């Protein structure tokens, strides 16, 4: 059984059919990429699966259990993490605090205990801070631990989002254009980082425009065009698919 099963998924915004009858399965432990021209519905698909949008029709199952229509915070409890194409960083907090928020569900969140500083809580917080700093080192941000998020560069914030997602200890992580806006050197670093995440046993779903990166990392690729599934397969199959070539080169098939 696949880890994630998507069946006939559609969402309509008024008359716009952003995603139409898309079906695919993702096996545990692989890197699965979603590609397609701008406006193909890739981010919408992410928003549907991670609960930010509710599908108009269709089903999404995680380990066989229906998760469509569940809220993002419910999905977080099931080990689903994500990053955003347009950064969603808390600029009012320091870098390490952003990562610590990622561990939210693993912590004692009781208001009264926190306000009265119950014994053990501060110690747990220090451990958490050390763990978050380690994660920042894992994504290559060790020099920014105490920096305020609003003082960091775009490329660093992109990786900070990945560190925050990893702090959830997810089983499934959705990365929405992690290399967008990065320079070639940073792109290679993110490429290596995603490899490391996959090697750690996390299933990765990737939306990315950098074809070199997609071909290099992906076990399987889904191609979307105008909200519909155009093709699915291994990198080699996708590369040779005439429909995909037509969509990307703009030729009329």
């Amino acid at each position, binding site marked *: 059984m696949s880890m994630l099963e998507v069946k006939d998924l559609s969402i309509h915004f008024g008359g716009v059919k952003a995603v139409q009858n898309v079906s695919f399965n993702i096996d545990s432990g692989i890197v699965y990429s979603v590609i397609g021209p701008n406006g193909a519905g890739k981010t919408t698909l992410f928003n549907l699966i*991670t609960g930010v949008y509710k599908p108009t029709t269709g089903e999404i199952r995680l380990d066989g259990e229906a998760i469509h229509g569940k809220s993002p915070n419910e999905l977080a409890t099931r080990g689903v993490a994500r990053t955003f194409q347009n950064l969603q960083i808390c600029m009012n907090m320091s870098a390490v*605090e952003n990562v610590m928020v990622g561990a939210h569900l693993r912590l004692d969140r*009781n208001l009264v205990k926190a306000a009265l500083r119950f014994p053990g809580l501060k110690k747990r917080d220090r451990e958490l801070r050390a763990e978050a700093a380690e994660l920042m080192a894992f994504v290559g941000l060790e020099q920014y631990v105490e920096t305020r998020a609003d003082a960091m560069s775009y490329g660093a914030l992109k990786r900070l989002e990945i560190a925050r997602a990893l702090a*959830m200890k997810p089983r499934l992580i959705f990365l929405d254009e992690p290399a967008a806006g990065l320079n070639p050197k940073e792109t290679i670093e993110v490429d290596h980082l995603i490899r490391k995440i996959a090697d750690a046993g996390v299933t990765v779903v990737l939306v990315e425009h950098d074809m070199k990166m997609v071909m290099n990392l992906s076990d399987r690729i889904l191609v979307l065009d105008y909200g519909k599934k155009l093709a699915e397969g291994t990198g080699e199959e996708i590369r040779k698919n005439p429909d995909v070539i037509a969509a990307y080169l703009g030729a009329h098939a």
Partner: protein
Amino acid sequence: MKKSVYNGLYVVIAILLVLPFVMPNSFYLDLAVRMAINAVIVLGLNLLIGFAGQISLGHAGFLGIGAYASAVLPTHFGWHPLLAMGAGAVATGILAAVVARPIFKLKGNYLAMATLGLGIIISIALRNEAQWTGGPDGMPVPAMGLFGFELSNDKQWYWVVALLLSVSVWASLNLIDSPFGRALRALHGSEVASQVVGVDVVRYKVAIFVLSAVFASLMGSVTAHYVGFVSPNFADFFHSIELVTMVVIGGMASVYGSLVGAVLLTALPQALATFEGWETVVFGAILMLSMIFLPKGLVPTLAAKFGKGE
């Protein structure tokens, strides 16, 4: 946040300990008590506005519920003042939760509108239920007794309020640098990001709103007993605005900013009394100027300037 944020707490405690011995007369002691009471209210309000990013324009209404609970229940029903205070706080908490839940399920900031309406309704109710509340004239409040010991003079009140303030500052600092506090700040920074890491946004917003409302209610009761008298003006819209102004002037999302804002804006009307009739105008001008030159509020601006950071 490093250890150093707690250093400010020691400064606050030191000031509170020294203050009564350097006060020239009881007028200043009375002012200090009012400042401290406002500081506790503003601390609670700043948790909501500054840290969680939710605006309440009806906090004076919650003060009013607490104050009138302490006036009405002991006077008409013979309740013990502490019991009345608790009842006011519980009623406020329930009211706040009932109002907040549906509002926070909507997208967008509707809390400001809803609390504006709620505050006005409360103040109208207090004005109209004259047989219980004395109507527009207000009513006297019986003295507060603690374990057979009556709080009567300003000195005693000062120590009670100073203790409440110190504990509130300590608890606020603890709360901000905890998983709960980080979740609050995160949902302010990016609601969708906090949701995808598992923060139940509605629950957290309701929790902090209820907490700050209960804070206000308790301090409303304290004020009522201290002043010995309540009137509907206390629950007025203008009082709500004054409290929000204290948060903004002192500095949003700043614990010590809350204290500075409360102290300054409690003192300002007294300091401006010499302007006779023009004090409101001068008051307004000071607010405008501070918004233009210190848009982040006093304490955060100064902290950034001197490179300390909070």
